[in-house]
Structure formats: structure tokens, C-alpha cells
């Protein structure tokens, strides 16, 4: 399964009325992320949350930024897939323009991206936005 776009995800999730289906969908989205290679999962790329950890590798591909991400927790992987639907292979300007908080609000998942959650997601979003705001050579 390839990752749907963020609009499509908002629409998909709005069809479910029970939380189990919503989380099952998110878990399945997470499974569509390609796993990172063990060599790529270095200490420097590790964002340690107090409950789960996330690895993030970024590469510049022409005008776009490409990310490899993985968490040791499957629901966090699902949430990462939601983030990737917004940021993957986008230009820095597109990334900076995207309203990530509004997006998570629309998904009714803002609790999970709040700074207080120890899942590393907020830190990942911060890192990606930092990368996007750095001037390119």
C-alpha cells in the first residue's frame, strides 16, 4: 500500500465512527512505511521519547526532502505515517507552509502530537521543520 495524501487520510478517517477502526487504520498506515535498515538506525538519528523511540533519516533529493522514519511502537509508526503523508518528498517551502497542528486537529488526534506526549512525534515534527528552514547551498 502506498501512502495516501493528507487530504485523503482526513477523509478516510472521517468515515469511521468507532475508535477501534480508526486506530486499526492508523496502524495499517504505519505498516506501509518502508522499514529502515539497521545501519540507518544510528544513535544520532534516534529521537528518544520517554515511552517510545523514533529514528529519522533525511536526504535532500533535488528540490525535495526525503525522510526515512521508524518507531519501535506500531501506533507511533502509524502516526509517523500521518506525518509523512504531509511532509514526504515535499519542498522546504511546502513543509513550512503545512499546518501540522490543524491537520492533527482535523484528524482528532491532536492529543498525540502535543508536546507533553512522550512518543517523540513532536520532536520529529520540530526536526523536520528545522531542516526545511535551513538555507540550502
Amino acid at each position, binding site marked *: 500500500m502506498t501512502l495516501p495524501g493528507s487530504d485523503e487520510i482526513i477523509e478516510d478517517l472521517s468515515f469511521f465512527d468507532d475508535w477501534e477502526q480508526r486506530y486499526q487504520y492508523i496502524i495499517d498506515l504505519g505498516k506501509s512505511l518502508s522499514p529502515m535498515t539497521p545501519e540507518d538506525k544510528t544513535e544520532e538519528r534516534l529521537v528518544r521519547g520517554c*515511552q517510545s523511540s523514533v529514528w529519522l533519516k533525511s536526504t535532500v533529493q533535488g528540490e525535495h526532502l526525503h525522510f526515512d522514519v521508524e518507531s519501535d511502537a506500531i501506533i*507511533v509508526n502509524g502516526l509517523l505515517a500521518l506525518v509523512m503523508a504531509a511532509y514526504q518528498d515535499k519542498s522546504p517551502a511546502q513543509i513550512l507552509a503545512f499546518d501540522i497542528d490543524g491537520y492533527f486537529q482535523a484528524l482528532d488526534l491532536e492529543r498525540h502530537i502535543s508536546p507533553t506526549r512522550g512518543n517523540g512525534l513532536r520532536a520529529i515534527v520540530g526536526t523536520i521543520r528545522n531542516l526545511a528552514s535551513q538555507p540550502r547551498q
Partner: protein
Amino acid sequence: MSLDLNGLRAQFPILSRQVDGKPLVYLDNAATTQKPQAVIDALVNFYTQCNANVHRGAHALSDEATRRYEQARDVVADFIRAGSRQEVIWTSGTTEAINIVANGMAQRLQPGDEVLVTEMEHHANLVTWQQACLRSGAQLKVAPILDSGELDVDAFNALLSPQTRFVALPHVSNALGTVNPIQSLTASAKAAGALVLIDGAQGIAHGQVDVQAIGCDFYAFSGHKLFGPTGIGVLWGRQTILEDWPVWQTGGEMIAKVSYECATWGTLPNRLEAGTPNIAGAIGMAAAISWFMSLDVAAVQAHEKALLASATEQAQAFEGLKIIGTAKDKIGVLSFVLDGSHPADVGFILDRQGVAIRTGDHCAQPLMRRLNVPGTARASFSIYNSLDEVDVLFKALKKAQSMLA
């Protein structure tokens, strides 16, 4: 007398709220306990009736606030059977209490000295001693645990020597629920000539703590894990030791005489309590203790035992679940992992069902490494939990297991 659980629960307003449309099942009591109305009332009453600074004002409110604040100290002294009220030092919590002792000790330790802790420490009782050793050149020794999560008492005793100046250990492990035989461990440590601190953060909420009977030199605990407010806690220490303990913070309240060149310190307990204290917190903590002491301790303890027994029995019967920490003497905590599932995912799915637990390393990273787990899911029980709630936990776990498969 048996426990009127419904009556008890009714005293905790928060227990009737819902989370995501489901009744809250609060099983994160080792992190912090909920507060009974009596404590909430004490806080509201203080701020509505007699808020003033203590020990300073020349007016009625200040007198009243000071009286209530100092009475709160008496309540704590009684509760833990302190030798005197001077032995009760208000702190912001267990962490600050341990820091006062570790900082003082760092000034007295020398290269060649040893400090002994255990493999089941909370970071509050580990990093503090590690840093005190780094500053003083003393060596940190760590007494190992067995796979069951019990302290290896023989190894602990073998690590005691004339070099052992200080021993710090938990009354009850927050991550595993292991109850340590603190009385006999303290006796061995004292026989070796060491000072002994018991981290009572988890031990305090489960019944009578008698610091004289334990025989330790320091006992540290937090109000918020004992049905009281956050931001208040206690360092109990022997008067003869605290009398000349290196001061921790300097400033108002703790001095006797001040000139531009020097200052002399006041007497206990004030010498270790710089600045305006957490007055409402102290009063709230005393209200919590008075409330707790009004319960039938034997009934409360029997109920807590029944909760953990039911949880343990259901956990043992649960396919794919592994209990982390199987000490014979355990209280309040069921730590576990589900085969093939990350604890964070388990916590997540439980949360959606209104069941609040904690997942992660429980501020005990070296312990998690020792047990070879990335973390655990931890359900921790308090006196107001019901056996029905234990059943809800396991129903919710079944769902988590099927969703995460």
C-alpha cells in the same frame, strides 16, 4: 471492620469522571494518587480563610497560617513516629529530600569512600548519589537484584565494608512493586558503620511507616503519592544528624544572624528550609495524612492485597503476558510486557478504553537494561481501586492484544 469501598470512592471527585466517554479506571497510582475531598477542601480553605506568609507577620492571619503550617509538621511527625517535630523537614518532594542528603554527603565523602545503592533505584535515588560520588571522588556500588526483582541480600551484605559510608535504597520499587526488607537491610548497613537513607516515595502510601523501628537515618517521601498535593514532601532525618547537616539552600527563614561578611544558620527544622515554604502544600499534606489515618489500616491493606492478588492471577492466566517482577513480597504494582507488543502501544490502546496506566522505563533505565526490556506497562493500584476495575484492565488488555497482533 471491612472497607466501604463505595463510600471511599465517593470521597474522590475525580473518580467519577469519564475519559473518551468511558468511566475512568485510574491505575497509575504509583505515579501520583488522586486527592480526596478532605484534601481539596483543606487547600481551598487555606486560600479562602487564612492565606499569609509564615513566621513573619505581625498580624492575625500570619499567626494562624503559621500555626496551621506547624501543626501540619506535627501531623507528619506523628504519622512516621519521628523522634521530634524538628526532624521533619519540608521539601518539594522525595527528589528534593534526597538531594539535600546527597549534597550534604558529597561534602563529607572522600576518595576511598563508598556509597551503596541497589539495582532497583528510581533515578531520584541513583543519579543523586552518582553525582555526589563524582563530585567527591567516592565510589558508587550497586547491589544486584535477582531475576525475580528481589534484592540479592547476600550480595548486598557482601558489598558492605568499612569503606561504605552511605547506603540508599527504596522501601518499595516503583517499577516492580518489590517490598524490600528495609529493617534488616538497615541493620546490616548500620552494623557496617554506614548512614542509611530509605527512599519512601512508594512505601509511604501503604500503611504504617515507623522510622524508629526501621532504624534508618533518613526517610524521604512525597505528599502527592499519599493522597496529598504535588510540590510538597518530607525529609525525615535523625535530629543529631540534621543538626549540623550542610545547609542546602541559603536565604530567608534559615538564618540566625547576617552581616555583609558572613551568616550563621538557624536551628532545625528551619536551617534546611530556605525561603517561603509551600504553606498550602504542607497543610494539604497533613490533611491527606489525617484522612489516611482515619481509615482502618488493616482493612485497607487487605484490600490492596486482594487487588494485587486478583491482578496477578489474571496476568498469570493471560496468554502472551509476562509479569516483570515476581518478588514474594510485592505491593501495589503489576509491571508486565505483552509478547510482540511495545508497552507504549499497549498503554495507548488501554488509554482509549479509559484505563490509565504508565508505560516506559519508570525513571529506572539501568533497571530496565538489567531486566532486558525496553520498558514495561505498569498498572499500579491504590486503596480506592475496585476488583471490577482490575477486570476492566484485563478486558482492555485483551482488546489491545488483538488489535496489536
